[in-house]
């Protein structure tokens, strides 16, 4: 999801740019030092100014690159290929005590950027810190304790079975150096202004408008990274559009309204973009509504909606229609039952009308709540209204302020709404967030998922089954069960995938992720994926 106001600002900027035609071209991304590969200019998140915060456990305000480029995780999970896990600071992991303990064997000869060796003490310290400071424990890991078994072996104990949390433990918890962080009284407010990490980069320069990372000479992967300097200038959403047009930025993650005109500028082989799915946008029916609670009504709604048209008109063809299970395709095949792998949506107005025969037409009036700053969703809502009118369902679309929408959907105070669900490392996480009964609070209380309030024993059983095993095949089987429920019972109606924005120029560096080689999320704002991308880049023309 992008920030609400950004889009309006982006629109305003586009207006100016569209009028200008393509006047840019100058600018350039800063001169290269002679004989050296040029710096890469990156825009990760919209910011007018930066704060000096490099604490990887802060939620917002932490500068991008802290996690992945400076502080590394134990393993790397490729979200575009669920199940593909690469050993990183840890070479191996082994579960014991029925998933309540995990032992990591660490890579040796890894050094912190200040020269001190990286050991099991650092890993233990990091997880102990999360336990002691719940504010930093953003994944809510139920850590009981840690034990250093050898300089390269550490065990972490949990209060509950944590197989399904491997991503949060190993893929989303950057390790921090004990010898520096132990001196800090309160790591929760520590801003880590001089970060020392194991990662491929170190911080070399910081000001409110620009920070710069340079290659860590003692990085454990010899010869890498090949990009010597990465610069992060502060761009607001508005200013970024101009910068992209003028070619100042090499790698950005932004919504660009008319990408061919503003960014590609007739050079598709150089000014590339790749928008893989990073989540699912669904039409949420409030299942506590007496009419929407009926499966045949949801079925009829789903049959009447022309999703292709929504993607084409409201989403500018930047994304694709979702698989009916909601699972991200391609990539998630193994998580969908065989008989449904090729399933696709087809509009069928006649059948929809047939399904609605037994229902009093007077009851088929719903309000569709959308956040008005998300202009694409507002357009999608209009299209849905038109489609549903064809089968006799009256939909009132209502745009509200972002805050209001968050609050109303959270509390279940709506009939229909549109909402995105993040994909997570495997499709299970997305479906859990959409369907898990325990996430749904009674109407009037804020939920943190399952906003449509789906209550189903079978669903909860499958979710528990996944969480109780580390066997990939069994995890996939449980997720297939969830996918089947999505398709057959329609607790929520998938519309399209939410795209992850990534624009990258190949005039300085090549080796970016692509549809053919999706080795990591291509967006500069996804960590630690962005570090994986930087490690794969090679100077152009070599």
């Amino acid at each position: 999801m992008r920030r609400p106001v950004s889009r309006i600002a982006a629109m305003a900027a586009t207006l100016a740019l569209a009028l200008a035609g393509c006047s840019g071209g100058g600018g350039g991304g800063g001169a290269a030092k002679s004989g050296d590969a040029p710096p890469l200019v990156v825009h990760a998140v919209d910011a007018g100014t930066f704060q000096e915060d490099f604490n990887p456990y802060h939620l917002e305000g932490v500068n991008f690159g802290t996690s992945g480029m400076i502080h590394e995780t134990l393993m790397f999970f490729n979200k575009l290929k669920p199940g593909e896990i690469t050993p990183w600071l840890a070479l191996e992991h082994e579960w014991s005590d029925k998933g309540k303990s995990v032992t990591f064997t660490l890579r040796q000869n890894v050094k912190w950027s200040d020269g001190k060796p990286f050991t099991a003490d650092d890993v233990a310290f990091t997880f102990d810190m999360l336990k002691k400071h719940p504010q930093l424990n953003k994944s809510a890991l139920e850590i009981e304790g840690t034990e250093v078994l050898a300089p390269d072996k550490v065990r972490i104990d949990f209060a509950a079975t944590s197989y399904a949390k491997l991503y949060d433990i190993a893929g989303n918890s950057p390790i921090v150096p004990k010898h520096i962080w132990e001196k800090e009284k309160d790591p929760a407010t520590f801003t880590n202004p001089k970060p020392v990490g194991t990662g491929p980069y170190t911080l070399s320069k910081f000001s409110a408008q620009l920070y710069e990372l340079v290659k860590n000479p003692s990085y454990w992967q010899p010869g890498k990274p090949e990009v010597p300097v990465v610069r992060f200038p502060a761009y607001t959403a508005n200013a970024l559009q101009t910068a992209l047009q003028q070619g100042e930025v090499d790698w950005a993650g932004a919504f660009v309204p008319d990408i061919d005109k503003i960014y590609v500028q007739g050079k598709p082989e150089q000014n590339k973009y790749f928008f893989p799915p990073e989540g699912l946008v669904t039409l949420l029916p409030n299942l506590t509504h007496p009419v929407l609670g009926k499966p045949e009504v949801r079925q009829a709604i789903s049959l009447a909606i022309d999703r292709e048209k929504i993607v084409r008109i409201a989403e500018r063809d930047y994304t694709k229609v979702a698989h009916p299970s909601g699972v991200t395709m391609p990539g998630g095949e193994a998580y969908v039952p065989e008989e449904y792998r090729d399933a696709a949506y087809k509009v069928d107005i006649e059948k929809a009308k047939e399904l609605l025969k037994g229902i009093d037409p007077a009851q088929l009036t719903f309000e569709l709540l959308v956040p008005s700053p998300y202009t694409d969703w507002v357009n999608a809502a209009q299209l849905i209204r038109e489609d549903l009118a064809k089968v006799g369902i009256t939909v009132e679309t209502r745009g509200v302020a972002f805050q209001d929408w968050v609050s109303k959907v959270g509390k279940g105070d709506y009939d229909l709404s549109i909402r995105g669900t993040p994909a997570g490392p495997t499709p299970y996480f997305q479906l859990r967030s959409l369907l898990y009964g325990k996430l749904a609070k009674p109407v009037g209380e804020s939920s943190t998922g399952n906003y449509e309030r789906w209550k189903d024993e079978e669903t909860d059983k499958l979710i528990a089954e996944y969480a109780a095993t580390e066997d990939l095949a069994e995890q996939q089987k449980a997720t297939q069960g969830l996918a089947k429920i999505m398709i057959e019972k329609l607790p929520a109606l998938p519309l399209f995938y939410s795209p992850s924005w990534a624009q990258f120029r190949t005039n300085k560096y090549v080796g970016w992720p692509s549809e053919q080689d999706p080795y990591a999320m291509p967006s500069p704002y996804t960590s630690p994926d962005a570090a994986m991308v930087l490690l794969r880049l090679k100077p152009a023309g070599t």
Partner: protein
Amino acid sequence: MRFLARRLGFYLLTAWAAITLNFLIPRLMPGDPVELLVARMKGNVEPAAIDAMRKAFGISDASLWQQYVDYLVNLSHGELGRSITFYPTEVSTVIADSLPWTIGLVGVATLISYLIGTALGVIMAWKRGTWLDGVLPAATFMHAVPYFWVALALVFVFGVTLQWFPVSRAYGLDVTPGFNAEFVQSVLYHAALPAITIVVASMADRILGMRNVMVTTLGEDYVVMAEAKGLTSRRVMWAYAARNAILPNITSFALSLGFVVGGSVLTEIVFSYPGIGSMLLKGVENEDFPLMQGIFLVISLAVLVANFLADLAYVVLDPRTRQESE
């Protein structure tokens, strides 16, 4: 003195009202900051983690009254809390970092626009009936056009098409902030276009206001008297007519000085200028109560102080208020 004491009492009361409203208004917004954060964050968030976030941000479920008392106590120590958007940066730091940019840009531009506008108004009133009257429709037009439109138009022409001026940020990426010639030069260069838009857009008000009052004043007996005495027209224009006509303009100047701090949101958004307006926008987007409160507080205090200064200026400039106060 009684006049001043009465005004001071009035300002204290207003300050209290402003501080209280400042506390209430953000809390009347729907939703809460953590919910918003969860909605924007890309990962799945566990309920337990949400409680932890609430704790970290210092969002309490305490009664409104208790929160109000805490707020006043903290305020009396000068503590504004930590910003949620820029956690864990203190709100006072965020304000201290952004306020100089706003005051430097908008303050200076307002002053320039006031001086030029007033002078032009005086001259145009004096030379009414000549070709100078042709400026009036233009001024009325500028007065009516929305500010951001002027700004966008100027950005488009001078920034994007002609590329004479940078279109965003407060200084170039290649300079290091500090007290050196390069940096100062870059700051001035980057401030030029936004400053020009502010001057152009707000000058019209001053011209029209000053000219209209001036025309009325020129019909007064003492002006005729001054002319009859054979004083130079320059003396009559500035010392007799303008000095009396300027009073309403002083009020509006003082008011606009107060709004320098808060009224710059649009300029800063259009030009991506790192001032207090951009911070306020960020704060509102993220329901960052502490940050919003801090900025609103600064804005309301600035307006009050500016008003007080206007009152003082009145006492100096207008003998009638002095008489009343004796």
